[in-house]
Every structure is written in C-alpha cells, then in structure tokens.
C-alpha cells in the first residue's frame, strides 16, 4: 500500500454565515475574506503538518492545484513542493498535480517537475489533471470544448520534452516551439504519473495505455465511488491490460481518528461540517462548463463530481456522513475496518489520506494523523501481497541523497582556501 498524507489547504476563516451570504467558495469568492497577514501562519502551519506527516511513515505527502478557491489556497503546488523537498528527506512528493493545459507553454511543467525531481533526489510523483471546470474554464479561461485536445497536446509535449535527448521542433495546434530542449531533466525516466479522473472512459483508456495510475479524488467517500471505480476495473479487463494491480488506481478519503468513536465525533465533527458545508459550497453555474465533459461521459450518467447530493450537504449529519462513507472516522479499530472495506472494495493501492479537514486546528490534526500512522496504517500495509513489488506507479529515489544544509563549516572553509583562522 502507498499512503499519501494529502492537504487541500483550506482557508480556515470562512464565516459562520458563509453559505447564506456568499454564493460560491470558488471562482468568485469574496477576496475580502482572505487575510494575507493571517495566511502567513496558515501556509506555514500547513507546510509544517505536511513535513510532520513525512516523519510518521507515510509514503508520500501530497499537494494539488486550485485557483480562486477558498478550500484550496494552492494555485501553485510546485512552490509548496519545493519547500517540502528541502525540509523532508525520504518521503515521496506527490504533486497531484499540475493542470497541464493551463501552462503556456506546457514545457514549463516539464521543467518545474524536473527541478522538483532533481532537488528531491527522485522523490517526485507527478500528476497531470485536466483540471476542474472551475479552475480550467472559469478561472483560467480555457475554452471548454477545446480543453481536452489542448490537454492531450500538452501531455504529449511534456513526455517528449522529458525523453527526447535532442532539441526538437514542436508544431502543435496549441503550441509552436522551434527549440524544445528542457534543462534540467528529471532523475526518474519518467517520474510516475497519476491522473485524477471523474469517470470518463477516455481517461480510463489514457491511463491503461500509458501505464498511469487512475485516481478518483472525490469528497463523497468510498461507498459512492464503487460504481465509478468498478467502471475503471471493467475497462482494465476489457482492454486486456496485463494485470489488475491495485496500484493502477488511487482514491482520496477523508479520515478522522481518535481514541474512540465518540471521541472522534466530539473532536472532529465541527471541522468536518465546516468542510462539507462551507468549503464545498460551490455555485452550480461553475460546476461544469458546457463542452468541458464529453458527450460520452455525460451519457454514461456520471454527474459532475462536484454535484452535491440531492438536498445538499447541509442536511447531512455526522451520522449520515459516516454511514454513507463520505468520512471514515472513529477509533483506530473502526477506521481500520472501514479502510479495509475501502481498499478491498475499490481495489486501490494508493490512498490519498485527507487527514486535515476544513478548519481543523493543528493539534487535533496531529493527533488524528499520529493515530492513523501508528495504529491503522501498519495493519493495512500487507493487503496486496501479490503486488508488493509493483513499483511502477511510485517514485524511485536515488539511493544516495544529499541532506540540505551540508555546506562545510566556516572554519573548514578558511582552511580549504588557505585563510588563517
């Protein structure tokens, strides 16, 4: 199993009446709700948390990209990942990911991911999302019906920029570059690639054909994800993929651990409610620009993953959220059982653990994270013995890596350059 501690970086100061007074947490969210001075502490404590998780035995620490978004203050995950690369030494850096159609030219992603891979000693796990409609179309102005074609071209360009040892010309429809020759090049050839998807057959095939891991980053939990993930595995079988390794898939799950089930509710319910009621309060007009999803995807009946359950989240109590699997919460034993159901039920080897939820303060987050790492994770490690050596979808760091801060002492410098001490 590969466990990634994943942080969305929500803004923790959305007001109590956010739902009533504001129409959306995303795209046109009121900028006056953002306080730059407060964000100094928010960013740094979130980065501290990611680094802390890196010391507890998680395989990866994860960041992602959103724009103009009150539950994700990370328009550039690469900036966060660069900070983490310096302050961690062994853990995988999961950047899930860069919305590659948004970078102009997309070789920028090839370059920045290469830098992250080099700085971290080959610890990068790369993600190439199409990007949500909110980010890609409404915030970044991409034409919905052309987004996927542009994404595909960006993907092909990045892969070639990583692998072609010689300068080449790229005469694409969306990118014209006479001299592509990125410098630096990534350590990993190539870094493992994960593709977040929302149920389209095209994305299933794209992952199968390229040996990429398909990840479903939903907030509605493992029970509702069953049909979508089954669709993926059916497709894997249909397309005669060489194996059904669980590492071909990943899933994001909100998780809260406490000493007992009751304690979990007492400690975390207000933060879970903050997330589902305020952070997911997205105006429906921004959920899905016409043309963004393919006709085929709409016809399969997959609703946008941002479509709230009928009646909205506000009607869901803690009990509903737990029973319907949106959130896995409780004692280590309860969480372990539910995680087993999730892992077996969806056949997923990569788990993106959403252990920071909404406006959860750091002490509670550390408590939940530590309990998960020490009392849950070890029991789930050996779930797929047949595939324990399948490392195709994970990073392969250099055996020998430098430690940051390893400059010689000033004293030695003086001796080396012949100065007098």
């Amino acid at each position: 199993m590969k466990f990634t501690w994943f942080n969305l970086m929500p803004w923790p100061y959305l007001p109590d009446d956010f739902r009533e007074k504001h129409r959306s947490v995303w795209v046109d969210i009121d900028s006056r709700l953002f306080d730059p001075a407060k964000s100094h502490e928010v960013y740094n404590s979130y980065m501290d948390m990611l680094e802390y998780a890196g010391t507890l035995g998680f395989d990866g620490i994860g960041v992602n990209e959103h724009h103009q978004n009150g539950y994700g203050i990370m328009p550039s995950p690469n900036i966060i990942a660069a900070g983490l690369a310096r302050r961690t030494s062994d853990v995988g850096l999961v950047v899930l990911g860069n919305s590659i159609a948004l970078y102009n030219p997309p070789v920028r992603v090839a370059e920045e991911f290469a830098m992250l891979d080099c700085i971290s000693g080959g610890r990068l796990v790369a993600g190439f999302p199409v990007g949500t409609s909110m980010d890609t179309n409404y915030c970044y102005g991409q034409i919905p019906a052309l987004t996927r074609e542009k994404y595909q071209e960006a993907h092909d360009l990045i892969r070639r920029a990583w692998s072609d040892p010689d300068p080449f010309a790229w005469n694409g429809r969306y990118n014209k570059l006479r001299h592509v020759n990125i410098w630096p090049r990534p350590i990993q050839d190539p870094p493992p690639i994960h593709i977040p998807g929302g149920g389209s057959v095209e994305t299933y095939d794209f992952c199968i054909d390229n040996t990429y891991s398909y990840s479903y980053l939903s907030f509605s939990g493992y029970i509702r994800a069953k049909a979508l993930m089954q669709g993926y595995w059916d497709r894997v079988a249909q397309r005669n993929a060489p194996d059904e390794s669980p590492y071909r898939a990943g899933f994001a799950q909100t998780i809260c651990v406490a000493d007992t089930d009751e304690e979990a509710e007492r400690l975390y319910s207000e933060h879970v409610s903050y997330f589902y009621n305020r952070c997911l309060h997205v105006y429906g007009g921004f959920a899905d620009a016409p043309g963004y999803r393919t006709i085929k995807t709409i016809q399969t009946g997959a609703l946008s993953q941002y479509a709230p359950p009928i009646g909205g989240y506000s009607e869901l109590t803690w009990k509903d959220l737990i029973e319907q699997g949106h959130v896995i919460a409780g004692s280590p034993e309860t969480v372990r059982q539910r995680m087993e159901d999730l892992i077996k039920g969806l056949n997923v080897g990569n788990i993106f653990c959403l252990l920071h939820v909404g406006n959860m303060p750091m002490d509670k987050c550390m408590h939940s994270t530590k309990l998960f790492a020490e009392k849950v994770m070890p029991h789930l490690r050996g779930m797929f013995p047949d595939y324990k050596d399948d490392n195709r979808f994970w990073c392969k760091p250099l055996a020998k890596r430098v430690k940051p801060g390893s400059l010689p002492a000033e004293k030695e410098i003086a001796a080396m350059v012949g100065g007098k001490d």
Partner: protein
Amino acid sequence: METKTIETHHVPVRYFEGGKGEPLVFLHGAGGVTAEDPFLAKLAEKYHVYAPLLPGYGDSQECGELREMLDITLHTWDVVAALGLKDPILVGHSMGGMIAAEMAAIAPNDVSRLGLICPAGLWLDDHPIPDIFAMLPYELPAVLFHDVAAGTALMTAGVALDDPEWLKGFLVQNARQLGMAGKILFPVPDRGLSQRLYRVKAKTVLVWGDGDKLIAPVYAHSWKKAIAGAELVSIPEAGHLMTLEKPGHVAAALAKLG
C-alpha cells in the same frame, strides 16, 4: 419550415427552409433555433428563408474541425455556397450576428445586405456582458427577456428537472450547443471583430431591444460607429430574445434592407 440537410466540406448541415421571395440566410444565436420559431415564420412571409444550424445544434452532427472564429466564418460561407446562393440577405441574431458580421468583413464584396440583431462580438470594459456560461437555467430568463415572467414560461414549458432522463438530455444538448458556441463566445465574446468591421461594405441594419440585459443597448452605438452607414432600429419593450418577444417588429426593421 421544412427541415433539410446539405453536405459541406466539413460536415453535413441541417437547415430549415421556407417561404417565397428573395433569399435570406438567418444565422441563429447561442440558444439555437427550431423549425417552429415564430421569427422564421415571420421572415418566410416575405423572403425565401434558409436557417442553417451550427454543427452540434438541434439534431445536427457535431464538427470537431471547427475550433475558432475563422473556421466557423469560412464554414458558414461553405454553407451559403452549398445552398447555391449568391449574395443573399445575411441576417444573424446574437452569436449568429457575430458570424454574419465576420462573413461580411472577410468577404465584403459578397454581402450587400446585412441584418444584425443584437449581435455579439464586441466588448466594452465598462459594460461587461453577463456570463451565460456560468448561469443556471432558471437564471437565464432575467437576462434574456424584457418580460421575464412570459420568458420564464416560454423556457420552462416541457421542463422536467426531476426526471433524470430529461436532465441527461438537457446536459447533452447544452454540451453540444453551448460547447460549440463557447468556441467563439467563451470566456469573453470578442475574437477581434472590432479590428475588421471597417471592411464591411454591406448596407447594414442593426436591430436592438431597448430592454436588452445581455448585450446592453450601449453596444448598438459601437456597432453603428464601426460600420459606415449602418442604420439602427431600436425596439421598445424588447429584450435580447426579441426574435421571440417581438418577431414582427424585428422583421419590419429588417425590411429597411430592401
């Protein structure tokens, strides 16, 4: 109106045809047009009307090859040629007006009469056009109609939001139609037309509803300034969908084209 199909270089095109008189080509707006449209019926009283659907509209075939303004402009010229028409009266509503104006700018010697009904294609920073791509269906009547209550009744006839099959059909239609419209209207409906309008030689009539809340009447003046000799006809108590609200008035205004 009869529903017909004609072959073009890129894709077979659906069109509605009816009426007797001089040939008139009508290009619909982002909402599309049907064979039962009251405005087409009104035009057919005086003209031989051809109303082609942009690929993806109605039951017409989609066309991935059409990606940008020039593609769509030339494709629409292909349609006119395929219909065997030469210098028809060219009329467009909203997005269709934008396409018609592009056609007249790119081939000024081939269009001698141009009717533009609250066309899209220009952008004034002080008067941003509401983003129809970010609106929920129930929000549209307020920007599309002068008489919002009547407009709402018109738009919600036959709507069954609680029926999943209806909803799926609606989402597919939206993806096909507005997905296509987005290629020239999203996220800002300006593809540089203002730099080309000086080329238009056609006798031009602009028709605008006084109550247009989508493309405000102030835009009419920018159009009038950009096309030499253009005549503006304002229609009182009419919104952006004035072809539905005041079909007779709009047709009468176009009669000024001769």
